[in-house]
């Protein structure tokens, strides 16, 4: 079993790519479906992550759930938007993989044989050159400007929060759809008892619910910032 160390990854794409590469898989929906459990397992450890990072991990989790649901229940129909988000995730992973390959070139030569520049007007002693138009007021106003421009501690971009809110809706909707499909699938299943698929499908439900729980956790973290109290999720069971 492949084990994951907390904080080892830069972000969700880094984690996903690592899981895929460790299994020597290429980037496609099948391999994404096969590593989704490990990804969700990793999400369980996310509680201490900064809020914004959780958002990124959870958003990608929702796409993985779609992929996995689709691979297990082929009759599940995906909306155009959902198809797109799957395609987009695959494309982003390819991009990211490419960047990692290219970064090896940078790593190999960075700082090995540097080229140095010369100090500007080296050796020239100019003495004091009167700075034209410079007044004390100018310096004071520049300092005020610098003070105003010191970067503030980065706030959670609203957009990330919005994504979680829409994720909540999406998960609810998906739950309904999958439950319906599940019932249907079980009905189909009961007709062919010896297919050996029963345990697998129970596992789907369990892991799906477990996953929902994780997503909720993400949302609960969000709700701690007071503006979002209203999106706290109640237990639906």
């Amino acid at each position, binding site marked *: 079993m492949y084990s994951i160390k907390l904080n080892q990854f830069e972000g969700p794409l880094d984690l996903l790519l690592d899981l895929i590469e460790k299994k020597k898989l290429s980037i496609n929906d099948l391999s994404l479906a096969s590593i989704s459990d490990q990804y969700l397992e990793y999400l369980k450890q996310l509680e201490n992550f900064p809020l914004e990072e959780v958002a990124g991990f959870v958003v990608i989790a929702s796409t993985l759930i779609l992929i996995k649901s689709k691979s297990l229940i082929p009759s599940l129909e995906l909306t155009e938007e959902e198809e797109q988000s799957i395609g987009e995730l695959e494309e982003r992973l390819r991009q990211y993989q490419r960047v990692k390959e290219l970064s090896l070139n940078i790593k190999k030569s960075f700082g090995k044989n540097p080229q140095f520049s010369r100090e500007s007007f080296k050796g020239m002693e100019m003495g004091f050159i009167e700075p034209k138009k410079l007044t004390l007021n100018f310096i004071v106003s520049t300092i005020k400007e610098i003070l105003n421009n010191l970067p503030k501690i980065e706030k959670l971009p*609203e957009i990330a929060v919005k994504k979680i809110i829409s994720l909540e809706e999406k998960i609810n909707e998906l739950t309904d759809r999958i439950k319906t499909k599940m019932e249907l699938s079980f009905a189909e299943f009961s007709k062919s008892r010896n297919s050996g698929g029963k345990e697998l499908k129970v596992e789907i439900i369990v892991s799906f619910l477990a996953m929902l729980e994780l997503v909720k956790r993400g949302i609960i973290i969000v709700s701690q910032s007071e503006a979002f109290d209203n999106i706290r999720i109640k237990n639906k069971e």
Partner: protein
Amino acid sequence: MINLEKNIEALLFLKGESMTIKQLSKILKEPENNIESVIDSLQNNLSSRGIRLIKKEDSVMLTTSPESSEFTKELTKEEFDSELTKASLETLSIIAYKGPVSRSQIDYIRGVNSAFTVRNLLIRGLVERVINPKDNRGYFYKPSFQLLQYLGIQNIKDLPEYGEFDKKSEEFIKNVKSDEENINSNDSA
């Protein structure tokens, strides 16, 4: 060596920092296209010497040759930091191979917020930022002369595999959705 080439060499030597073709053209009272072709010749003439001409867009600069670095490293008093964290290496690679890129494009490729890392690269002088011409609240990030110096190359195109990001993904990244762009407006780096 023709006089114009000598004069360009002398000016770049004195200035130390980079100069634009435009500045050279103004001081030397020669049309920019003359300057440009002579610069190519100078870069070529210097390619087997202890001094190199490095070029970035419309700016040029003289440096020591990478082959002499064993000795020049000893002489320089500059702080020389060749450490790169995983985050810095990734971000730097995106900027080197794809620059100019916006913060939101970098974030999108990496899947994480890169504000801190980008700021750190700016402070180290490995990348530079320019105002996004289409949106003057946002910035574009691109390689700096300092980056070329650290890599020991004369042009960014000399990077292995430069320009091999396929066209398809190129367009893909350009089409980063508008909500991703909104994140950028929070960018204070």
